[in-house]
């Protein structure tokens, strides 16, 4: 199979990576007669749509691009992983070998958590062609509410340090976040005020309310159990649980891959090549177990470890021991949020409707989707995730002030957008946003490590944001 050389020259001249030529007589209802597969103007093969449908190009000819296609990985996600790796290596070299250490990576994971948790919700909001500028202020208000509840109200009827305090507080915070989100969503969906304006108002209002509620005071300290939500030496799941979790995650990945094959075989659809699935499984598991290993290489500080030994009546050994801290609770929360939100986005009707509204609001409405209710739910979900981030933040600070979360709306939006979410709506992934949060936080932490001045940090993050979106736009234009 090879194309006529004239056609080949035309295609090469246009430098297209791939195109379909439709032959006149067969041009009926979008028949694609043949695909001309090109790589940088070089003709790689010609095949009919049926072959395209039944086999994977990766088998026809090698090359990185076709391998990625066979693996069905999002090239943009892959690009981000490469960019992240580059940033990490760069900071590692510039900092004289302190960036890629278990200690720094562990801290990085904890710092990423609040932004990552909120970015997962921001993706959904942006996908519906809306925006939420109020998340930072909402975080301050909900954090303040939870602080006042556990410091001033609950002790009056349950006493201090009651085992249920943290749970009641967290539940109340989630309800509060959901209500604020639903209220903003209602104004957007039913009153028709643009989300930009509604949440810009929210940005001013909620922080003001937070200040007013506490009359400007700092509310502290938090309940002991609540503090564990923020990480720290007593806020982790420990070494063995981290390994167990990694094991479960590996198993889960394998089950997903096997299930996917089984379902596609049931309907006799084209299967991903076996080597691709095996590669995905092996690489995925290696990444999960590798992360667990890095996390577990960061030990509990010696004085804490010694105290734990003494509490258990054990002799503190000569030369000390290293007890792994394990995965921090905020990171665990972020991972759970990521999984749940991915499930919601991909596997539920609500998620499908969110994307349909973003793709074409009119079509969604004509398709019988209750678009207004869906919008309210989207903002509500954002509010709930803000509440989780607020719990993590106040627990970590062990205090609530009306000043927390300032500018975090911008970092959250930046994370979502760096992660491939399109502000035009309809496009975005949760995994991308979490990676975006990690990229943004890596930049910031790395610069702190290098003692870069704060204004310069802002400049770098700003430039990276614009460059990331510019690259993404160029990529999209080439693809479509």
């Amino acid at each position, binding site marked *: 199979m090879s194309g006529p050389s004239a056609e080949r020259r035309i295609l090469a001249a246009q430098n297209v990576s791939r195109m379909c030529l439709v032959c006149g007589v067969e*041009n*009926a*209802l*979008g*028949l*694609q007669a043949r695909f001309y597969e090109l790589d940088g103007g070089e003709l790689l093969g010609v095949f009919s*749509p*049926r072959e*395209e*449908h039944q086999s994977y190009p990766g088998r026809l000819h090698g090359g990185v691009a076709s391998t990625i296609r066979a693996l069905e990985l999002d090239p943009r996600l892959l690009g981000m992983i490469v960019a992240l790796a580059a940033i990490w290596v760069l900071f590692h070299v510039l900092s004289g070998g302190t960036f890629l250490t278990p200690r720094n990576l562990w801290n990085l994971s904890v710092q990423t958590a609040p932004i990552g948790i909120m970015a997962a919700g921001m993706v959904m909001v942006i996908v519906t062609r809306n925006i939420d500028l109020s998340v930072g202020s909402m975080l301050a208000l909900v954090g303040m509410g939870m602080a006042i509840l556990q410091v001033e109200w609950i002790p009056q009827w349950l006493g201090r340090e009651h085992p249920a305090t943290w749970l009641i507080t967290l539940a109340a915070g989630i309800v509060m976040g959901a209500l604020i989100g639903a209220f903003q969503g209602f104004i957007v969906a039913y009153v028709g005020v643009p989300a930009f304006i509604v949440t810009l108002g929210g940005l001013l209002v909620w922080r003001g309310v937070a200040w007013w509620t506490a009359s400007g005071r700092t509310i502290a300290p938090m309940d002991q159990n609540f503090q564990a939500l923020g990480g720290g030496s007593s806020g982790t799941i420990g070494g063995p649980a981290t390994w167990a979790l990694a094991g479960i995650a590996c198993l889960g990945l394998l089950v997903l891959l096997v299930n996917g094959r089984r*379902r*596609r075989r*049931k*309907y006799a*659809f084209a299967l991903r090549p076996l080597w691709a699935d095996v590669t995905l499984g092996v690489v995925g598991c290696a990444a999960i177990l590798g992360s667990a290993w890095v996390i577990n290489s960061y030990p509990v500080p010696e004085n804490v470890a010694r105290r734990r030994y003494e509490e258990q009546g054990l002799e503190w050994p000569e030369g000390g021991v290293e007890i792994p801290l394990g995965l921090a609770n905020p990171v665990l929360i972020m991972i759970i949020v990521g999984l749940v939100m991915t*499930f919601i986005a*991909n*596997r*539920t*009707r609500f*998620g*499908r409707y969110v*994307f*349909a509204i*973003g*793709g*074409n609001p*009119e*079509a*969604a*409405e*004509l*398709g*019988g*989707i209750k678009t207004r209710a869906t919008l309210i739910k989207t903002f509500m979900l954002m509010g709930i995730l803000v509440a989780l981030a607020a719990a993590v933040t106040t627990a970590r600070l062990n205090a609530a002030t009306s000043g927390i979360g300032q500018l975090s709306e911008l970092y959250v939006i930046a994370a979502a957008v760096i992660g491939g979410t399109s502000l035009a709506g*309809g*496009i975005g992934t949760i995994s991308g946003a979490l990676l975006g949060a990690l990229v943004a936080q890596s930049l910031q932490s790395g610069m702190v490590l290098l003692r870069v001045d704060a204004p310069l940090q802002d400049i770098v993050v700003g430039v990276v944001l614009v460059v990331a979106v510019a690259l993404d736009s160029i990529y999209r234009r080439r693809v*479509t």
Partner: protein
Amino acid sequence: MTASTAMEPATATRTPLVEMKDIRVSFGGVHAVDGVSVDLFPGEVVALVGGNGAGKTTLIKTLSGAHKADSGQILINGSPVTINNPRDARELGVETIYQTLALADNLDAPANVFLGRELRSRVGTLDDTAMEDATRRLMGRLNPRFLNFTSPVISLSGGQRQSVAIARAVHFNAMILIMDEPTAALGPAETDEVRQLIRQLREEGLGIFLISHDIHDVFDLADRISVMLQGKLVGTVYKKDVTMDEVLAMIIAGKRPGEVTAEDIEQLH
């Protein structure tokens, strides 16, 4: 022969699938649709024609649920119905293919076919594999050359997108199909394919309202032609009884066949 006598044999023998009686819609004092009555029988294509702003689309939107009529009555299979939104219309077996196709461009073909009526597994999650399977079967019947079931529909050609829109309309056992300019954005070969599809659906016993600017489409496909001008119905005629010129006279001058003079026809050309 006049339009009114032409309609009598059909109404005497069967119950219409759809009867829209004395429909009125106005936008801020402008009568977009002013007391229009049309009907549609099973296995029949009724073309709604008229110039821009004649009120065809507005009239038909009261049937598809996109607009509410200010007054008038809609009967389906002889019983009066209330249609407040697109969901109501769909439940009554009325499916609409909009001129814009109303596709969510970022979703793939199966997601668009099942938009708003997704198939779900026993635990309530989306069953994408089942939806893809159903869409493949459906396309096997409607357009066997449609093979792209996993890319966002924005990357499909005009004809393929039209196929997706038609597949969505016919999959749920529609009785009444509304097609708004189905061939407007298509090339000649694709237009033929869509015309063939419309004939096939009529054979299957569906009633089809066809809105079109293309007089050739209309004469090729329609059994009856209802002409609108400035929100009012000029008349409904059987295609076999009229010439293209007579229909053009109805569209432009609002004159029924019989009222038209040779001079009028001369002016049209």
